[in-house]
């Protein structure tokens, strides 16, 4: 008996090192493959000498400072706005009908790939977009669209808006997942009994406890916002674009000698993302100082109605914008002719869908297989390492930070290095290599969504089970798994959504041979009509949406006769 327990523990012991190695080794090798060329070493294209010349080239590129600032700005402003909107909403709408309504919609919205949402947003807010069409020409007198720089504006505001509306559902989901552990209702009612308004009570009593639990997801948001390519390409400035977009262009330049500068730019990008994270953490210190003053001031007057109003409008408005963007895509996918200023297509067709369906079989199949396998492996590894942490009663190892490396590094950087690495071993591009590449991104997100819920689970339940004589395994299967079913399913849905939406790992590690819905969509987006892109963007959103719906309804159905399990 003791030996058996011991063996299980040893098996579990391996979960987290395996997971970390799985992530850190390829990223490390990929990084090395960038580090060398950045300083001039890349024998295949004739680079044998170490030099700083490529860095000089990089800083001599026109507009490079502006590109850096744009990336930095997006990296800091995006999480700040998204977090503020989420907190204001939770402060003002917790446990109301609006709250339940929003919770129902937030996960499916999370399933929409960034590129699809961005594309939809363009079609909403552009001068010839849906909003302008609704009021033209009657109210505006425009029979041709106004010549206004709304999308692709020079400061990246449209890009930040696109990022914010996509990050809000993500942060909200994370917040909802960890919130129950804080007993928010109790905290709020205590503050209310001391005379605080409900929203202020939430902000003073719950928010300070909630924020630390969201720090890691916020770091992921910062990294993503400062290094993202798809949203920046569609909504971002063009003269010059963000650093990430330019660096991707240099990596793809037919002039192979550009690879050196591209490699240097990749390191720079890593530096910019890290700088954004560090600035955020410093900003956090300052903000928390003021926040504490505000909390301690004991001021019970004012503010509540403003918070109430902002909280209840901003977040629903963001969700409505995403919904509207999806509606625009939906209409577009059935339009044959739709010129400005018509608010609806002049003629309709199902041709775009008919065109898409025959070629869909293989991509859909591949997408499902890759998402299912990579998410399952990720879940086993993450649960294994969290369970070990629980049973061995150890604190989170600081090495766990390594998990987030793949999210912090610009993808194109280490993926190209990984391709070279795979080639060294004559690993032909195949499905397994692609799945492995997906794991690098799926594991961190699964961990992100699941870890807090796992760690904060009230230990009394397990202690109670142990006191009743249950073995650790039995406690795990009978107590922890059921209690954590909802977060585990959310984590799975998140993993599936991530896997279904990533492009570069699939393309690079599969040599383009493993077609997924996303690779098809991206290829078509480079030359397709608005209707074709809309059709594929919707298809791309559909699969992960199924995952989220499962995550939403399975616990409801399983626990339909247990009221205590319904929320959270």
């Amino acid at each position, binding site marked *: 008996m003791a030996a058996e327990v011991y063996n299980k523990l040893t098996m579990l012991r391996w979960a987290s090192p395996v997971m970390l190695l799985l992530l850190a080794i390829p990223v490390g090798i990929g990084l090395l493959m960038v580090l060398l060329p950045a300083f001039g070493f890349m024998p295949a294209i004739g680079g044998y000498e170490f030099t700083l010349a490529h860095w000089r080239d990089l800083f001599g590129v*026109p507009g490079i400072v502006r590109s850096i600032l744009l990336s930095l700005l997006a990296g800091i402003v995006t999480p700040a706005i998204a977090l503020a909107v989420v907190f204001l909403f939770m402060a003002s709408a917790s446990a109301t009908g609006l709250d339940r309504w929003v919770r129902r919609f937030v996960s499916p919205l999370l399933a929409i790939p960034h590129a699809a949402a961005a594309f939809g947003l363009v079609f909403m807010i552009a001068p010839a977009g849906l909003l302008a069409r609704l009021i033209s020409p009657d109210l505006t007198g425009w029979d041709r669209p106004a*010549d206004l720089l709304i999308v692709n504006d020079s400061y990246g505001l449209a890009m930040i808006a696109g990022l914010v509306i996509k990050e809000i559902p993500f942060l909200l989901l994370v917040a909802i997942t960890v919130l129950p552990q804080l007993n928010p209702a109790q905290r709020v009612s205590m503050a209310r009994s001391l005379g605080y308004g409900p929203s202020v009570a939430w902000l003073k009593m719950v928010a300070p406890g909630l924020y630390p639990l969201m720090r890691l997801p916020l770091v992921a948001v910062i990294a993503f916002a400062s290094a993202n390519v798809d949203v920046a390409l569609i909504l971002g400035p063009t003269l010059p674009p963000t650093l990430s977009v330019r660096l991707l262009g240099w990596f793809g330049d037919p002039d192979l000698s550009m690879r050196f500068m591209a490699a240097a730019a990749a390191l720079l990008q890593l530096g910019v993302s890290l700088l954004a994270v560090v600035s955020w953490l410093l900003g956090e210190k300052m903000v928390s100082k003021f926040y504490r003053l505000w909390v301690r001031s004991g001021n019970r007057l004012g503010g509540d109605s403003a918070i109430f109003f902002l909280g209840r409008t901003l977040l629903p408005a963001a969700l409505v914008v995403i919904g509207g963007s999806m509606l625009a895509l939906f209409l577009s996918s059935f339009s*044959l002719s739709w010129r400005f200023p018509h608010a609806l297509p002049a003629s309709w067709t199902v041709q775009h869908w008919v065109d898409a369906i025959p070629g869909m079989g293989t991509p859909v199949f591949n997408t499902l297989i890759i998402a299912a396998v990579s998410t399952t492996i990720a879940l086993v590894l993450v649960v294994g390492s969290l369970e070990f942490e629980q049973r061995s009663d150890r604190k989170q190892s600081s090495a766990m930070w390594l998990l987030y490396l793949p999210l912090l590094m610009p993808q194109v950087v280490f993926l190209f290095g990984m391709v070279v690495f795979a080639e060294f071993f004559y690993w032909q591009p195949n499905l397994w290599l692609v799945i492995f590449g997906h794991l690098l991104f799926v594991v961190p997100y699964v961990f992100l969504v699941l870890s807090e819920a796992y760690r904060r689970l009230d230990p009394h339940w397990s202690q109670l089970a142990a006191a009743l004589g249950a073995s650790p395994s039995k406690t795990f299967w009978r107590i922890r798994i059921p209690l954590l079913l909802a977060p585990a399913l959310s984590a799975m849905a998140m993993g599936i959504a991530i896997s279904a939406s990533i492009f570069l790992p699939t*393309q690079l590690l599969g040599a383009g041979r493993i077609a997924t819905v996303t690779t098809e969509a991206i*290829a078509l987006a480079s030359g397709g009509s608005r209707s074709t892109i809309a059709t594929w963007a919707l298809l791309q959103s559909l699969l992960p949406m199924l995952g989220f719906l499962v995550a939403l309804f399975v616990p409801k159905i399983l626990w339909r006769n247990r009221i205590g399990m319904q929320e959270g």
Partner: protein
Amino acid sequence: MFRKTLKVFVSAVLCLFASSGLAVEEDSAEWLSIVKEAQHQTVYFNAWGGEIRTNRYLEWLAGEVESRFGIHLQHVKLADTAQAVSRILAEKQAGNLNNGSVDMLWANGENFAALKQNNLLYGPWAESLPNFLLLDADQYPEMREDFTVPVEGYASPWLRAQLVFYYDSEYTQQPPGSMRKLLAWVKANPGEFIYPKPPDFLGTTFLKQAVLELSDDRALLYQPVSASHFEQATATLWEFLDELHPWLLRRGRYFPVSGAQLRRLVLDREIALAFSFNPHEVALGIASGELPTSSRSYVLDGGTISNVSFVSIAFNSPNKAAATVVANFLLSPVAQLRAQDSAYLGSMTVLSLNKLNKADRQKFLALELGSAAPRVEQLNRKLQEPHPSWMAAIEQAWLQRYITN
């Protein structure tokens, strides 16, 4: 054992065939042995997958080579051809010299130049294809040059392309016939024109067209670029652009990034004048609802840039025989006819009609162009691409000039 001997024999034949440099007969022993070797091979054809029509044409191609030669063709859909170039480079870097993942690729201009220069291509083979004769390359030197870079048998022609302008006839009836007239037209119609930002290839083509028209000494542009020549040949281009930009859509503070975005801007009535690299694009765009029915296309008075696109084979492809057979089939009258037919691909053939038999020639002549397409005599006004080194230099200078910190 026997298989191995056969393999050695066939690759010897392939070498012999490749180095002969003369087109062989379709029923010659050399060609037949290649066709035999090609059977059951899988060809990964890396080609831009941004257009449904091209994708569907390649699906048809896959079916044809499967039934005719037993070759499995798989279209690897690229968003950007440079992805395939990267791949081949990574493989070479890792020492994968015989088992590459890219067999065949559709690459032009800078991509082709980079591949050839870095010895990433297999060849020479293209001029030995049986169907090479149908191109009449002695009559049409563009079959042997890709953006003035000699192809030397490292790539086989596939399709023709030519820059055409198009306009919304609902908005204007008199589109400009030259770059100088364009400037006057945009001043009279502010915000009704824009071009994609380099290094998008359509945007760069616009700049090349402008520099060819505006430069005092066009001959310079057909030689490799040098610093002194660059100044001399492009001074008028920058003057022109400086004057043009304030009149563009969004006053030159934004540039689209692709031809697809230009089409969207025309459909949205944001602009009334645009351009494309496929003379049939307007007809096809109207049919698919991507362009307004009032769109019409034309060629500039002094002619426009035209080129030939090529397919090549990676140096480390394990399926060279099959790739060769596919390249040859792409040049067959049946494949080219379908490529030219606007019901399918709607591109332009590379075949010389004089080299075809009467029945085939009739089929080509019978294809309808439609009223939105430029007239045939307009399409005869062709300009050759400048040397590719100009492309990079102009792109660089453009960024230098119009992007600021």
